[in-house]
């Protein structure tokens, strides 16, 4: 219990640290949001007036403290560029990014685990090398290159897959799947490469343990041994790995949203940085960091909870 409280405090400290870093970075960034939004046609008098109206003429630390104060009241402030609450901007895009992340995670799970089982049963030198090469290749391909290749070879051939833009679930389920499938696959591919080896190694390690030998000795069929015993026990460490993969997937959405022009969180973040829209950047960075830290936190707790049980079973 003290462990959990300690972790909670650390989570809080981490978020403050990130917020301060973001603020400091924005202090050094050249460029003014109002000027950037208006472009070269802006007049000096207009820039000044708008800055005053939007409260941007106040000292930076005052603006920042106001923002932080708002945070504790559940208000993330208003976007400078869109003059509307950051929370609603994030909420509008969240379904896209979450769908994308979940879709990728589902692909990873449904490909990596069966692949892990399949390859674990065929263990020899050459397959070992081939599989590790495959893993390394999967990690080596830049995600956006994967995306472009998928557009070229799949998106252009099958019209079902949309290669740019997003169709909301509410509009058409098939359309939503079509618009998310290729980007999700793009994010999933390197993660499959990593996680299936985890699954495979976990299975191999389990199958060398005593209880498996005992099970075999009892005359259970191979299928029962593998699926009933080995798989069940080896999935626990694998599941914890998926926590980390989810974090990777969330980060992956940022680049992939650019490749497939999906209007998600990542896209909002990149344009917000270029327009010097500090409240939006701050909101998104904190949000993503919060989710990542939280996932790691859950994974850690999951691990400590599961660990003794595994030992008991052995």
């Amino acid at each position, binding site marked *: 219990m003290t462990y959990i409280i300690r972790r909670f405090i650390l989570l809080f400290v981490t978020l403050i640290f990130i917020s301060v870093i973001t603020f400091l970075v924005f202090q050094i960034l050249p460029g003014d949001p109002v000027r950037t939004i208006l472009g070269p046609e802006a007049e000096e008098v207009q820039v000044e007036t708008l800055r005053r109206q939007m409260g941007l003429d106040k000292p930076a630390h005052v603006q920042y403290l106001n923002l932080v104060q708002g945070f504790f009241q559940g208000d993330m402030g208003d976007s400078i560029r869109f003059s509307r609450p950051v929370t609603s901007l994030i909420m509008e895009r969240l379904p896209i990014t979450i769908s994308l992340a979940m879709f990728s995670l589902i692909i990873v799970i449904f490909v990596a685990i069966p692949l892990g089982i399949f390859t674990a049963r065929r263990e020899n030198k050459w397959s070992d090398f081939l599989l590790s090469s495959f893993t390394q290749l999967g990690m*080596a391909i830049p995600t956006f290159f994967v995306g472009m290749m998928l557009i*070229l070879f799949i998106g252009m051939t099958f019209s079902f897959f949309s290669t740019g833009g997003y169709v909301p679930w509410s509009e058409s389920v098939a359309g939503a799947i079509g618009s998310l499938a290729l980007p999700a696959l793009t994010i999933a591919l390197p993660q499959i490469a990593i996680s299936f080896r985890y699954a495979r190694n976990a299975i191999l390690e389990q199958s060398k343990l005593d209880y498996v030998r005992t099970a075999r000795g009892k005359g259970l069929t191979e299928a029962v041994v593998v699926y009933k015993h080995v798989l069940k026990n080896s999935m626990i460490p694998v599941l914890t790995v998926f926590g980390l993969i989810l974090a990777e997937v969330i980060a992956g959405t940022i*680049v992939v949203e650019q490749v497939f022009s999906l209007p998600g969180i990542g896209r909002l973040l990149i344009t917000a940085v270029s327009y010097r829209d500090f409240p939006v950047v701050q909101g998104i960075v904190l949000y993503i*960091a919060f989710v*990542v830290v939280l996932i790691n936190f859950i994974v850690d707790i999951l691990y400590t909870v599961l660990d003794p049980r595994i030992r008991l079973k052995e």
Partner: protein
Amino acid sequence: MSGRKKRKNLNLIFGLVILLFFFIVMLISFFYTPYDVNAIAVSKKLQAPSAAHWFGTDTFGRDILSRIMAGTQTAFFVGAIVVTMGIVFGTIIGGIAGYLGGWIDELIMRAVDGLMAFPGIILAIMIVAVFGTGIVNTAIALGILATPGIARIARSGFIQNKELEYVAAAKAIGVHPMKIIFREILPNIYSPLIVAASVAFAIALLAEASLSYLGLGVQPPDPSLGRMLKESQEYLTSSPWFTLAPGLTITLLVLGFYMLSNGIRDLTDHRSK
């Protein structure tokens, strides 16, 4: 894993072959490329691969092969800076944290955690926005990114070693802590650091490509493989070679570094046995 000893270290061999190949290509590109890397010949734009232009030409009629050759310079340069920065700062920070322990360790590791909770690409975007784009700034940004990960590895190495006899002996005769960190412990934990460096190189190449792809990394006219991919995107369907050539080059290069890192890991695992 007993059968492993006799097996050839295929990862190491393949990794070294790939990297050696690109290293030679890079060296050649300093003295010779088939065409001038930046020379513009608008009339020859977007030509398909041919005997004259093995990988075709880009939107300005520039030879893609020549630009890829020069692009490997950028890749190695950025990678080298990132790895150097990562190893130097990572070892110092990790060493101090791991060796001294206590609240200093706690403080440093929370900062490291904080940096790692930022998705790397976001931090890179922000750092680049501050320092500006370009080869050197991109490399510095990515070097900062590489540091926390290496610091963690270094720290755990130091923690494992600091209780060992030779360190205790050095402490007993009053050797300065900094000397213990760098003279005594460091030589004993070099192998995980070399593996980490090799992985960091691979990740740096990917990150440089991603940043340049987002338009935030290396800027024209400097050739960058990631930027070439960005430039090619609009012509993906009509001129696929423009995308394929730089894309496959990055992939192979990164693969080389991953294989090298796994190869080294296998090698050092044996030795420790």
